[in-house]
C-alpha cells in the first residue's frame, strides 16, 4: 500500500470512528425503547421507590408484581384524617425543590402546591429569637473534615448553648448531630440540584403519589406480603414470603428501607458480598417521628428550631385549606429515641406540651385540643426515619446500590447516589436507576 492510499484509508477510518457511533446514537430518543423483555420482575416494597419502579416497568410493558409487607402502600408516605378538618401527612410532606421527576409530574398533572416560606425562629438560651448571635451556616462549605456535626460545631466555637440548634440541622437530615458527617453530608449537598424551595401539597404527598403513580398499577400491588428471603443461586430467583409461599422471578428489585437491610431482616442466599453488607452498615438511619398537636388558637411561630425535646416545630397548616391550628413536631435522632422510650402517645404529647409551655408561657396546655403521634421507628417494616451520611461513610451508597449478578437490583431513598437521598423524589430517582440498570443489561 503506498503512502497516499494509506493516509486516505486511515483518514476514512478515523472519520468512521468519529461519525459512526454518533449516527447510531441518533436513531432513538429514549434509553428504553422497546426492551421487549418477557421475564418477570418482583419488586419488594411499595414505597415511593417500589411504586415508581412498577410504574416505569408498566410503561415498558414488562411483567412485574410489587410485594408489600404492610397492609397499605406508600411506605414512609401516609395520610391521617382523624385529627383536624384537613388530612395530615404522617410521613413525607414537603416536595423539596421544583427540579426533579416528581416536580415535573406536579407541573404536568397541575397538582396544587404552595411554596412554604416559613421563617425560622430559634429557641436559644430560653428565649425565642429571630437571629442567633453567631451564624450557624458552618456546614455548607468546602473542605469540611469527616467528623460529626456535633464535633465540628464545637471545634468552630459553637458551645453547648447551640447544641439543639445543631441538632435541628442534623435532624433535618434525619440524624443525630453526633453521627452525621460534616464532610459526607456536604458532599451530598453539593450534588443536590433539585432546588431549595420547599413545597406543600394542598392535599397530601401520599395523595399525589397515589393518584399519579400507585393508581395506574394498583392491581400489581400485593399487600400483607412480607418477604423473608431471596435465593438468587438458581436461574429463576426464588422469593420466599413470611407466609411460606415461594414466588419465582427473573429479576428482583429490593426497595425496603436501609434499616431493614442493616438488620438482615431479609436473608439472601448466597449471602450478599461483604462489601455490600458493610456498605449497608455505613449508611446511617436513625429514629424519627412526627407528632401533630391541635390547638384552639395559634400562639406559636411558623417554624421554631432548637427545642431540647423537639428541635423543629412547624405550623402544619401552611399551604392547607383549614380553620384549624395544627403544630407539627418533627422529631429525629436522639430526641425521637427519647420520646419513643416514654412508652405512650400521651406521655410523648405531654413532654412536647411542657416544652411549648416553657417557650410560650403556658399557652400550649391552655389551648391544646388533641394530638396524634406517628412513630416511624416502631413501624416493624420501616424502623426509622431516613438514611443519612454518617462519619466514615465513603462510597457506601454507590456500593450498596450496585446490582448483583444482573438479577438483584437495589433502590430506595438511601440508595440514591446523586445527593437526593432522604427524599421521596430521591427514592423515585433511585427506582429509575434500578430499572435502567435492569433494562440496559438485558442483552
Amino acid at each position, binding site marked *: 500500500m503506498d503512502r497516499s492510499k494509506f493516509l486516505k484509508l486511515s483518514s476514512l477510518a478515523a472519520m468512521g470512528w468519529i461519525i459512526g457511533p454518533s449516527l447510531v446514537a441518533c436513531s432513538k430518543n*429514549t434509553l428504553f425503547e422497546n426492551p421487549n423483555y418477557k421475564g418477570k420482575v418482583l419488586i419488594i416494597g411499595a414505597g415511593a421507590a417500589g411504586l415508581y419502579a412498577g410504574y416505569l416497568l408498566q410503561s415498558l410493558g414488562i411483567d412485574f408484581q410489587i410485594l408489600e409487607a404492610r397492609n397499605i402502600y406508600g411506605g414512609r408516605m401516609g395520610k391521617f384524617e382523624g385529627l383536624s378538618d384537613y388530612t395530615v401527612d404522617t410521613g413525607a410532606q414537603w416536595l423539596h425543590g421544583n427540579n426533579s421527576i416528581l416536580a*415535573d409530574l406536579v407541573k404536568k398533572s397541575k397538582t396544587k402546591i404552595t411554596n412554604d416560606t416559613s421563617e425560622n425562629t430559634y429557641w436559644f438560651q430560653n428565649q425565642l429569637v429571630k437571629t442567633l448571635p453567631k451564624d450557624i451556616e458552618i456546614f455548607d462549605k468546602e473542605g469540611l473534615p469527616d467528623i460529626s456535626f456535633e464535633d465540628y460545631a464545637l471545634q468552630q466555637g459553637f458551645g453547648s448553648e447551640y447544641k439543639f440548634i445543631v441538632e435541628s440541622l442534623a435532624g433535618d437530615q434525619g440524624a443525630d448531630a453526633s453521627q452525621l458527617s460534616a464532610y459526607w453530608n456536604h458532599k451530598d449537598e453539593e450534588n443536590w440540584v433539585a432546588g431549595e424551595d420547599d413545597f406543600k401539597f394542598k392535599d397530601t404527598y401520599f395523595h399525589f403519589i397515589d393518584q399519579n403513580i400507585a393508581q395506574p398499577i394498583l392491581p400489581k400491588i400485593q399487600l400483607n406480603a412480607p418477604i423473608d428471603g431471596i435465593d438468587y443461586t438458581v436461574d429463576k430467583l426464588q422469593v420466599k414470603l413470611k407466609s411460606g409461599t415461594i414466588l419465582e422471578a427473573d429479576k428482583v428489585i429490593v426497595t425496603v428501607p436501609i434499616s431493614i437491610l442493616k438488620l438482615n431482616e431479609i436473608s439472601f442466599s448466597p449471602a450478599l458480598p461483604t462489601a455490600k453488607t458493610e456498605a449497608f452498615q455505613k449508611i446511617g438511619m436513625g429514629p424519627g417521628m412526627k407528632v401533630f398537636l391541635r390547638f384552639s388558637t395559634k400562639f406559636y411561630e411558623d417554624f421554631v428550631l432548637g427545642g431540647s425535646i423537639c428541635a423543629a416545630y412547624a405550623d402544619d397548616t401552611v399551604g392547607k385549606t383549614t380553620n384549624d391550628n395544627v403544630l407539627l413536631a418533627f422529631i429525629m435522632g436522639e430526641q425521637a429515641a427519647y420520646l419513643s422510650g416514654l412508652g405512650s402517645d400521651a406521655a410523648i404529647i405531654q413532654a412536647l406540651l411542657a416544652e411549648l409551655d416553657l417557650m410560650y408561657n403556658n399557652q400550649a396546655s391552655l389551648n391544646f385540643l388533641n394530638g396524634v403521634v406517628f412513630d416511624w421507628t416502631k413501624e416493624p417494616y420501616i424502623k426509622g426515619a431516613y438514611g443519612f451520611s454518617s462519619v466514615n461513610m465513603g462510597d457506601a451508597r454507590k456500593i450498596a446500590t450496585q446490582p448483583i449478578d444482573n438479577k438483584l437490583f437495589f433502590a430506595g431513598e438511601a440508595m440514591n447516589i446523586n445527593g437526593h437521598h432522604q427524599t421521596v423524589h430521591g427514592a423515585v430517582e433511585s427506582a429509575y436507576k434500578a430499572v*435502567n440498570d435492569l433494562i440496559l443489561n438485558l442483552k
Partner: protein
Amino acid sequence: MKKFLVLLILVLHFQVESQALSVELNYSFCVNSQFDKAVRVYNSARPFLTSKQPLFRNGIGAKIGYSFPTKKHPKVQYGFELGYSYFDSYAENDGFINDMQLHTLTPRFFTSTKITNRFLGQLILGLPNYGMFRQNNSEAVTNDETPIHAFGIGLSIRPQLSYQFILNEHISLSPTFGLEYCPFQYSPQGEALINQTKGLYTNNFNSFFGFDFGVKVSFLKARK
C-alpha cells in the same frame, strides 16, 4: 493585549492581497452522545410525558469572518471567523412546557486553499464555548434561587468546502458545507440541567460531531 491588536492590524494591513469580509447563515446538525443520553434519561424517567423531549439535533447558525491571502501563495488564504449556533429542545405536555436551549459561540482560525478556481477547501480550528439554559413554562429553572446554567469549552477541528459564485467585483456568494468534530469539557451542571440529576450517567468530557451547510456572502476588497 494592546500589542497583539496592533500586530494583528499591521498583519491585516500589509499582508493583504484581496481581503474579504464574509457573512454566513447556516443550518447545523449536531450529535453529542452525552447530551443525548441526558435527554434520553429525561424522557425514559418520565413516562407521564407523552410529548418526548427532542434531542439537540437541528440548529441554525451565523458566522462572520475575515480572510486574507498570503503574498507568497496567492491560492492560500487564512483568516478568522466567529460562529454562533443555536439548538433547541422543546416539548409541551398539557401546558407543561420544558424548553432547553444550547448556544455555541466559536472563534475560529482557518486556512483555505483553492482546489479549483471556484472550489475552496478550508481547514478550521476553533475554540467553541457552550452555554445551556432551561425554562419551565417560560420561567428559568433555578437551584438555590439562581437559574441553572451549564457551560462548556472545547477544541474543534473542521474541514469545510465551499463553491464561489462571483456576483460582481465586490461580492461573491458561496454555498458551504462543513464537518466539525469537537472534544469538549462541560460543567457537570449540563446533566443536572437536562435531567435534574448529577453524576448519574453522563461524563463531563465529551465530544460533539456535527455538520452544517449554509450560504456565505463575501464582500471582496480590491487588491492593494
